[in-house]
């Protein structure tokens, strides 16, 4: 995979500030006193062995799992006190490992129904396919390489295209924080390269947090890498720094 990640300008005010976050399941601390700060325009990749707590951190941010203690600040919001749908409305979008799209609807319809106006009952009932909706769908479709497939039924898309469609459904909601769990698993080499471009582009003006095992892909997208191990940060910094860290080699990269 070629091309270094597009740089980002950090500010002193992180968009996402996780402090002293702990969650225990029956006494087992899946996340243990975690501190993590993500800036605007940043692509942060979280790596680590299975069971390190990567997915649990995303679950905590999006409200699927409740913290035992600690705080998750996102802009002005304290996410640990909010419900899942409130967190979505505050601007957090998450993509799970397997694509969850509406297979019997077209690409256009999948994107259209993700438009925020149709979110509440009344909004959904009175929803109209107005020109601004169409324009937004077309813009997002172009961004996710599906402009030629707007009227294709989603189940006819390749695995990679389905993954992009789900990212597009999140983009329709213009989240400020986008979280992606293993977005390139099962993708072809060219789909991986395009996904790297896509993430570089969509990180402009927002923050992106990615969990991924494919190191070539991580290298091509990460501004900063956080390595989790047993619920704690084992190492953090540039890909190069993390890659040469003996502790990371021991538990994750291998000898």
């Amino acid at each position, binding site marked *: 995979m070629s091309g270094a990640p597009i740089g980002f300008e950090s500010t002193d005010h992180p968009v996402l500030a996780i402090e002293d976050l702990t969650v225990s399941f029956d006494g087992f601390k899946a996340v243990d006193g975690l501190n993590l700060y993500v800036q605007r325009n940043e692509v942060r990749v979280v790596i680590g062995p299975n*069971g390190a707590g990567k997915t649990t951190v995303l679950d905590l941010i999006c409200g699927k799992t409740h913290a035992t203690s600690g705080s998750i600040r996102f802009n002005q919001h304290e996410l640990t006190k909010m419900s899942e749908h409130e967190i979505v409305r505050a601007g957090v979008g998450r993509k799970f490992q397997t694509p969850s799209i509406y297979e019997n609807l077209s690409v256009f319809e999948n994107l259209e129904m993700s438009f925020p106006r149709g979110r509440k009952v009344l909004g959904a009932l009175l929803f109209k396919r107005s020109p601004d909706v169409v324009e937004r769908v077309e813009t997002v479709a172009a961004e996710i390489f599906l402009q030629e497939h707007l009227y294709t039924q989603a189940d006819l898309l390749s695995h990679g295209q389905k993954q992009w469609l789900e990212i597009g459904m999140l983009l329709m909601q213009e989240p400020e924080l986008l979280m992606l769990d293993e977005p390139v698993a099962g993708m*072809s080499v060219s789909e991986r390269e395009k996904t790297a471009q896509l993430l570089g582009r969509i990180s402009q003006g927002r923050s992106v947090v990615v969990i991924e095992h494919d190191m070539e892909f991580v290298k091509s997208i990460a501004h900063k890498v956080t390595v989790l191990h047993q619920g704690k940060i084992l190492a953090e910094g540039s890909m190069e720094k993390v890659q040469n860290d003996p502790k990371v080699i021991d538990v994750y990269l291998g000898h």
Partner: protein
Amino acid sequence: MFNVVNLASGYGQSAVIHDINLSVAKEEIVAVMGRNGMGKTTLFKTLMGILPVRGGSISIDGVELGAMESHQRVERGVAYVPQGRMIFPGMTVLENIQTGLSAQARGKVPDELYALFPVLYDMRGRKGGNLSGGQQQQLAIARALATNPRVLLLDEPTEGIQPSIIKDIARSLKEIRKIRALTIIVSEQVLSFTLEIADRFLVIDKGRFVYEDTRANVDAPTISKYLSV
């Protein structure tokens, strides 16, 4: 010697693989590289008897397998680690391995399997579904090896697995092919892993082999080009 001659197969009205010719020796590891949809899994399913042969032949040391059921091919020495691993999530690690042993009517798990994958010994009482992706992949390989195969087919074994376990799997495969004089055919679309283990490289494109070379002469940029079209 594992021999495939003019093999053809497909689904319904679509022919997916055509004129596949392949001879793999004992102790040899061959990589079949190709993008999604080019025929890698179809080839393996046909070799394994999950899809019927539409033309050509498959044989081990002169014994024709093409007309046999999958389980008969396992008895003759072909084992398959499918993409996505397909371990039995509700069964323990030990029970998963025992399903492989039953093909050879052997009761005890050979020590060398646990020596190859020590983590499976530590986790032998756990449910397969509670293992991590990398551990499940090791279990799927161990289950296949428990059938005492002469030919091992691995379909995209590194997908979604952490780097250190990929390295462990590469080491284990290189070791076991020597111990067992095993023929290994592995499909991948990521080159780094196969560059680590394969003696020979083939590229499958639209159901046909379009490139072949040995480890000494392998042209990685050319293979990458096929993979990234």
